[in-house]
């Protein structure tokens, strides 16, 4: 049962109950939709990037606690970052969330995002945590259609 507390940390509850940047962004120049068909999580991500820097970011959607908190934490982490920094953060987050549960993992440079490391113990929930990030990738590449975690 202690594993559940590892997964559902206070920060996650906080961002689930009061998601930050949970709105469309006026003047967004990048946008993508993400969908996790396993649990029905859906998000739309809006990015405003000027001179290669994330000026504003927001999301809308319905999802489980992990997906919602992950999207909220991600939007907080992205503001003010360059596209190259965003890409590096994606890689670090992805590596943390998908690393084998029995191996130590580096939280370096992840800040608050490290609270999501608990998903490694719950393979069925990793996609909930990575949905927002895959959607971010699609938005940056301006891919059309809905990104799926499947």
């Amino acid at each position, binding site marked *: 049962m202690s*594993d559940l507390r590892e997964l*559902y940390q206070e920060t996650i509850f906080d961002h689930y109950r009061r998601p930050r940047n949970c709105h469309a962004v006026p003047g967004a120049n990048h946008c993508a939709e993400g969908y996790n068909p396993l*649990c*029905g999580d859906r998000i739309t991500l809006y990015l405003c990037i000027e001179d290669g820097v994330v000026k504003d970011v927001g999301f809308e959607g319905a999802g*489980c*606690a992990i997906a919602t908190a992950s999207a909220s934490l991600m939007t907080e982490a992205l503001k003010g970052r360059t596209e190259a920094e965003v890409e590096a953060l994606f890689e670090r987050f992805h590596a943390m969330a998908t690393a084998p549960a029995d191996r130590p993992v580096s939280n370096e440079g992840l800040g608050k995002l490290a609270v999501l490391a608990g998903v490694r113990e719950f393979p069925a929930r990793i996609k*909930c945590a990575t949905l927002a990030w895959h959607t971010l990738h699609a938005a940056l590449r301006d891919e059309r259609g809905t990104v799926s975690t499947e």
Partner: protein
Amino acid sequence: MNLLEPVGIPDAQTVMAWRRDFPILRESVHGQPLVYLDNAATTQKPASVIAAEQAYYEHDNANVHRGVHLLSQRATDAYEGARARIARFIHAAGEQEIVYTRGTTEAINLVAQSFARPRLQPGDEVLITAMEHHSNIVPWQLVCAQTGAVLKVVPIDDDGALDVDAYERMLGASTRIVALAHASNALGTVNPVARLIELAHARGVPVLIDGAQAIAHLPVDVSTLDCDFYAFSGHKVYGPTGIGALYAKAALLEAMPPWQGGGDMIRAVTFEKTEYNVIPWRFEAGTPNIAGAIGLAAALDYVSAIGLEVAQRHEADLLAYADDALRAHPHVRMIGTAKEKLGIVSFVMDNAHAHDIGTILDQCGVAVRTGHHCAMPVMARYGVPATVRASFALYNTRADVDALLDGLARVQEMFPL
């Protein structure tokens, strides 16, 4: 069933004996005893089914309809014997009316491609219902795209019951086939299939029944129902995965072209002309799932020995018990409250998303399904992205329902409102 002999709810000892037939129920998950409530997805297998498959591989394994050697004969006898067992189980007129498939999905695709496709013209209609599983939607969408036919969907009411008046109105001069679930996997609703078939036949429209959910929980008599096609999967009736059956009236099968070509479905092949085999083998190209068929027959023997009516009463008792408790729960909203239901409870909870509930229940040892249950239009109908679904089988007990309720209490603790 002898109608003079009252069949009550089986006692606790009887159910405990059934439980012992299922080795997997001795498993623990996350340090908790397994409480398996995901039976609408797949049922567990009794030892007799596992033993039947193993015995086949240890003693009889050979290809069927091929060799003159003894093992091939034994394999063929067991495989064809299983077909006869299936025919008896659903009261088909003969075993030539049973086509082996990989499951319900393949059976429906077979009917869509071999029966419906040659008959459909642009503007013709295929009639399904709003409670169908994706496997009884998508094959029809494919055939509609191929032929220009139109898919029509009969609505359901807020309880999840079919709108029979709308069904009757929608059965029109252009309707070429009706395809509907005997029972809904997402809502548990049992459709009044006898009446629905009668209404369709009155207009000369053939009917396919998707029996995936019903087969383990309701007695099925295709002769009395007079359905034209009945599709089901072995794994939902305590049998193996990868094997199922299509029942079809012999006269319809006779008139249907093959849908896959290969070995076993032919009589004689030259490069100029191929003569096809007779029914049902015409529809069974390639080496089949022999062990699966044998395992399925063992599963049907198993449930027949218990008696589906007896199991049905036990499951109805579990449903009533779970339904009462969940309806009394202040933060639970039931999805699917039709009068006629199988042992399926589908619900959402104010405290948390279905997926979070599923994770917490799993940690408590309780296996449920969370998500859209391959019935996304049903989820859309109720305006929910996903539900939690607990579905019962004959080996479940009230203690299993209590474990589910304890798990929901844990959800409330973790996700206080």
